[in-house]
């Protein structure tokens, strides 16, 4: 992290960039948050560690409107999102300086808590892939790989698909099958599937966190906030979230979703929203050929493309 | 599925060809170096499979006359690959004899005038 910090301080100091988009120390060690840094002094709060899970690419849409260049720190998976945004003309490459930061998987505080570690006052990452956790009950530890975010187990890889320079090393964390959960649900009876999603989506409080965090859910005006579909009528439907919002959201990001996993990470109700996206990605891969959104800038997305011999619905 | 339908389906499976694609141009027979030795000609292989008459194909002399040179496979404009069909038929016969490939011991039991190229190809495949 020190190397990264030195480098961004230098780029800010010599005027190469006007501001840094990175992560800022939170109240606790595990709640780092995205932030813009414009002064050297503010960089004191800059951090990069296992809890810097937030995908910063979406903030670059706003950064593109600010004067001057913005330096953004992108993890390998974030770089796919940035690429996708670039493809959709939503960010300005000219006004962006990308440091591809290394990643050894991001950590899930809920998994740590679920492991019975409570009253956490501090967490530090150790060399030997363990975490040292200070708690009210004294010092505890756990293995990194046991508390990784779900998405890190099915990581797309640790290569940045777009960057100006790279800093920091990465460690492969892939040890799971990305579509295993999707297949599990597919194997269930329709009634059971319906019950499962009814239960999960029933928790939705329509806080819009998923929509706000999703890099490709970047419409200036969401259809669910516009008058164009007469769909701004949450009140007169009894379970609008289950029946409309999440289906349409998944559909709108189909072929564009890079599977960054932010939707599920930020959901306060812990709804496994990424399952919808994964399901669609799996379908696209099997029906239209393997496609990874954000891997390149050329070509059309699967839903704006066709083949005369495509499968029938 | 009758026995002969089953055999025809197996041929299609083993050979990986689709006999329905044949446009009956005959380029296979025109290419075949052992055409004159064969009782069922290469272009006819396809129709035997299409008409589920694998038994006749399996009993034919052609089965053991095909050199496996694959000239017909190379030149077939419709990607039907008659050479693979006869190869598959040969394979079916070999499997019925209890083997999935030809073993060296069996050579002495075979017809004396088998072309050596065929033997090589029978060792080679599967």
């Amino acid at each position, binding site marked *: 992290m020190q190397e990264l910090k030195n480098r961004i301080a230098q780029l800010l100091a010599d005027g190469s960039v006007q501001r840094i988009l990175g992560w800022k120390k939170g109240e606790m060690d595990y709640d780092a948050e995205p932030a813009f840094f414009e002064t050297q002094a503010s960089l004191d709060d800059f951090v990069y560690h296992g809890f810097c899970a937030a995908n910063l690419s979406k903030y670059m849409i706003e950064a593109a409107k600010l004067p001057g260049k913005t330096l953004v720190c992108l993890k390998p998976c974030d770089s796919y999102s940035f690429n996708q945004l670039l493809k959709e003309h939503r960010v300005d490459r000219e006004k962006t300086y990308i440091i591809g930061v290394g990643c050894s998987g991001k950590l899930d505080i809920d998994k740590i808590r679920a492991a019975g570690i409570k009253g956490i006052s501090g967490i530090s990452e150790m060399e030997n892939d363990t975490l040292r956790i200070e708690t009210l009950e004294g010092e505890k530890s756990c293995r990194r790989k046991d508390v990784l975010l779900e998405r890190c187990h099915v990581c797309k890889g640790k290569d940045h698909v777009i960057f100006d320079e790279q800093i920091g090393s990465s460690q492969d964390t892939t040890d799971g099958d990305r579509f295993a959960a999707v297949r599990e649900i597919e194997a269930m009876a329709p009634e059971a599937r319906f019950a499962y999603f009814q239960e999960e989506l029933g928790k939705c409080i329509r806080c819009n966190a998923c929509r706000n965090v999703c890099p490709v859910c970047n419409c200036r005006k969401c259809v669910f906030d516009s008058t164009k579909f007469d769909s701004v009528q949450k009140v007169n*439907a*009894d379970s609008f979230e289950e029946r409309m919002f999440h289906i349409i959201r998944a559909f709108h990001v189909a072929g564009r979703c890079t599977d960054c996993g932010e939707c599920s990470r930020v959901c306060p109700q812990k709804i496994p929203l990424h399952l919808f996206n994964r399901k669609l990605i799996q379908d696209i891969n099997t029906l239209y050929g393997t496609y990874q959104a954000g891997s390149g800038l050329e070509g059309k997305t699967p839903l704006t493309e*066709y083949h005369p011999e495509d499968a029938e619905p | 599925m009758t026995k002969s339908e089953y055999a025809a389906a197996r041929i299609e499976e083993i050979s990986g060809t689709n006999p329905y694609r044949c446009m009956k141009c005959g380029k296979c027979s025109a290419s075949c170096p052992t055409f004159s030795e064969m009782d069922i000609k290469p272009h006819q292989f396809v129709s035997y499979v299409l008409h589920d008459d694998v038994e006749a194909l399996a009993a034919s002399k052609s089965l053991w006359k095909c050199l496996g040179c694959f000239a017909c496979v190379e030149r077939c404009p419709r990607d039907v690959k008659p050479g693979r069909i006869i190869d598959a038929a040969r394979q079916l016969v070999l499997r019925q004899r209890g083997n999935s490939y030809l073993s060296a011991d069996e050579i002495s039991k075979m017809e004396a005038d088998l072309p050596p190229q065929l033997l090589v190809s029978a060792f080679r495949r599967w």
Partner: protein
Amino acid sequence: MQIDHKEEFRPKIVAFCCNWCSYAGADLAGSSRLSYPADVKIIRVPCSCRVNPMFLLRAFERGADGVILCGCHPGDCHYSTGNYYTRRRMTLLFSLLEFIGVERERVRVEWVSAAEGAKLSETMNDFVKTVGALGRNIRLGDLRCRN
């Protein structure tokens, strides 16, 4: 809540037909007096690719029991490529609906040319029968939108 599953159940079916092939096919079914149940109501759209998934979900939300989309046969689209997009969109949408446990049979895409009045009638008959057998749409509907 009491859901009526008796014989009297008549499904509500919304059909989207493209102007150039399927709507003309429906007209042909009419002029050939090839009947299909009155439960089917057709909405005319310029092309099947005009049909937004929002429309389908809206129909279900408002109490439709089945939604069918008809367009020109692939390759015959009046706009040359519209139905190809429809095909991909609906393939994914239907798959997603099935994934969350909605009955797959409630949605259908059928290619009907202007000459296929008989096919349109058969398709509608079959679809009404299929959806009728499924009963009321509960999984996607909003009960308060029921009259």
